[in-house]
């Protein structure tokens, strides 16, 4: 019986136009990234540096979080802590209620997706309006992002044109991207103007100075954090870095890895609410620091590397699986290789554990990761966590163990450690090869069955007299 994941994959693979669209988009992103790093030695230095910065921050995480909290508080920013997404949602709700706010405008934030914030607020009668152009588009269509930095990448221009025409019938149908963009600008300007609360994510939080950094191109981040009288930032506890001098290298490698731009249009560093005498900016700034499984990931020295991620999406852009099945097939907030390692750790192997099988371990993700997360190794580790029976910090460890599979591997290891039996087996296989059925299920649906040789290498070399000691 096919799993839900494989059913979704089947559907995605069947949509030729969407697949072609993804391929084209990922090709562009890969080319753009490559062009940003013409000198491989320099790229490797920058990756080393970014890795060290992130690893160092994680090694001091509790101290840095304390320092961040102290500096932010001193700067006048309210700091909140949430162990779960429910708690984070409640914190946001309470801030909204305190200001009698019935709606908010949002800049792009993957952590808010992780929280399911829009849905939660809606259930409380509060509207959360997305202002990132891609997020705005998918929100109009009732969808979730299919990519962490380009949420509407699965949609064609024609689909977006139709959607706009359907949702804004007063505006004439157009496929002109500039006109579509201007339409969104005009609609959202008015929203920014009136919004009682703005919400954003955070790319880096600097402990040393108490600074929240946001990377973006459109200005949705700046608008959301500048115009409404209240700004709420939500982020994961892992996003902290130690020093301000850690920021330039991270800022250098993030957009180059992500979209192949030397830098984004805006790099926004926020250290306090509006001060006495300043004429604009929010009067109140909040930061919600979300755990949601991160401290559990933190407890394992190997899996800890997962938390180095700076959410550039390069692993997604280079993944031969993602490019074929698209982001929605994963059924997770974070798709692609980073989602493959993060989601099962966050929600448990029994929920998203199958994802770790959806990798050929080709290593393309690890090769491009700007902070050198060994994604294939972590996938391998999570496969192990899925089937072993010892105690583990990983949620639902052992839940993917199937008795037949376990017995098969036991038998295999027995045979492969008894050479005489092994050779007997393989010799036997060469004898009966004519009887081997030509259908190996999944394998033979697109390939012929592999053919067993008439004599094994062992036999041939013996016959040839190769020294075998």
């Amino acid at each position, binding site marked *: 019986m096919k799993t839900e994941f*494989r059913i979704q*994959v*089947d559907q995605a*693979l069947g949509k030729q136009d969407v697949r072609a669209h993804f391929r084209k988009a990922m090709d562009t992103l890969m080319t753009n990234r490559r062009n940003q790093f013409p000198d491989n030695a320099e790229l490797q230095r920058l990756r080393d540096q970014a890795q060290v910065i992130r690893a160092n921050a994680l090694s001091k995480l509790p101290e840095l979080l304390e320092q961040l909290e102290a500096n932010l508080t001193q700067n006048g920013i309210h700091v909140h802590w949430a162990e779960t997404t429910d708690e984070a949602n409640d914190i946001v709700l309470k801030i909204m209620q305190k200001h009698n706010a019935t709606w908010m405008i949002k800049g792009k934030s993957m952590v808010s997706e992780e929280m399911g914030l829009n849905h939660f607020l809606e259930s409380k009668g509060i509207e959360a309006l997305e202002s990132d152009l891609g997020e705005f588009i998918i929100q109009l269509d009732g969808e979730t992002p299919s990519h962490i930095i380009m949420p509407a990448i699965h949609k064609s221009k024609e689909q977006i044109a139709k959607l706009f025409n359907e949702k804004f019938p007063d505006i004439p149908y157009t496929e002109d991207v500039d006109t579509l963009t201007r339409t969104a600008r005009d609609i959202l300007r008015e929203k920014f103007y009136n919004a009682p609360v703005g919400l954003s994510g955070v790319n880096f939080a600097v402990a040393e100075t108490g600074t929240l950094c946001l990377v973006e191109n459109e200005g949705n981040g700046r608008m959301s954090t500048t115009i409404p009288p209240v700004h709420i930032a939500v982020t994961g506890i892992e996003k902290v870095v130690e020093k301000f001098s850690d920021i330039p290298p991270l800022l250098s490698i993030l957009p180059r890895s992500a979209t192949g731009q030397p830098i984004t249009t805006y790099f926004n560093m926020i250290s306090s609410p509006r001060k006495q005498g300043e004429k604009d900016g929010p009067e109140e700034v909040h930061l919600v620091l979300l755990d949601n499984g991160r401290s559990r990931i933190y407890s394992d020295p190997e899996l800890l590397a997962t938390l180095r991620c700076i959410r550039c999406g390069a692993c997604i852009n280079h993944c*031969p*699986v993602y490019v*074929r*099945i698209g982001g929605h097939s994963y059924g997770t907030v974070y798709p692609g290789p980073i989602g493959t390692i993060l989601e099962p750790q966050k929600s448990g192997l029994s929920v998203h554990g199958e994802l770790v*099988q*959806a*990798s*050929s*371990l*080709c*290593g*393309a993700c690890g090769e491009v990761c700007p902070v050198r997360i060994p994604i294939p*190794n972590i996938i*391998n580790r999570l*496969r*192990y*966590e*899925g*089937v*072993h029976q010892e105690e583990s910090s990983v949620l639902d460890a052992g839940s993917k163990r199937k008795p037949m599979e*376990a017995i098969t*591997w*036991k038998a*295999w*290891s027995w*045979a*492969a*450690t008894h*050479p005489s039996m092994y050779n007997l087996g*393989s010799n036997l296989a*060469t004898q009966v*090869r*004519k009887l081997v059925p030509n259908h190996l*299920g*999944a*394998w033979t649906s*697109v*390939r*012929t*069955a*592999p*053919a*067993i*040789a*008439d004599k*094994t*290498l*062992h*036999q*041939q*070399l*013996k016959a040839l007299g*190769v*020294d*075998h*000691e």
Partner: protein
Amino acid sequence: MPPSKPDTVYFFGTCLIDLMFPKAGVSAIQLLQRAGIKVIYPQAQTCCGQPAWNSGYRAEARKVARAQIALFPKPLPIVIPSGSCAGMMKTHYPELFKGEADEAQALDVAGRVYELTEFLVDVLNVNLKDLGEPVEIAVHTSCSARREMGVADKIEQLLGQLQNVKVLEQAYKPECCGFGGTFAIKQPEISAAMVADKTMHLRNTGATQVVSQDCGCLMNIGGAFEYQAKHQNKKALSTQHIAEFLLQRTSSPSPSTGEGHRMGVAEVKS
């Protein structure tokens, strides 16, 4: 630093070659012997343990790996005609044996592992003379040879020495063929989509033949070509392990010419 040219090496044939592609193993050994190297093939060898390792069955993988590391007691290079199995031994044995009593032995073995093309280029510095007819081929470098072992350039260097061989470049050359061991069985739909694209790009080069340093990829790609020829009336490219290809191109024509040119295919039952 590669060692100076040794007079003897160990050869680890891999389970896939043992059972499915022995000619690749024999050819690799003959290439080494022709370069004046004595080859030792420990007969007790079975499998590097990678299938279990990649499936999460670490205890089982370790048990099998442990039986292998015992087979190479002398301080000699271990040559493996597969990027994937070489990668397992070189990069994953250290992880697999971490904290185990025989960790040092595993590290020692890992440090002596060479993928075949890497050994031919970096250690033997071989000089090949092409005796074959002009041919246009495409190269598929396995992901493990490319990324785990970092030896993608070696196969290209060897082929570059063959003056009658023209290597045509396929689109998406560095992309995985979709084999991935148990991946092909556990996620067959994605794997099928990947190999369909890979074969299409290879076919589009106009090459008649594909060579690779890994039999896993060849089994996947070759099997897909065969299937497409049979069921979709598409042109099948022949697939061959680099060792076999190099040996054929650089040996004087023998009475058996033409036989086994399409590795593995000769054995396919209709």
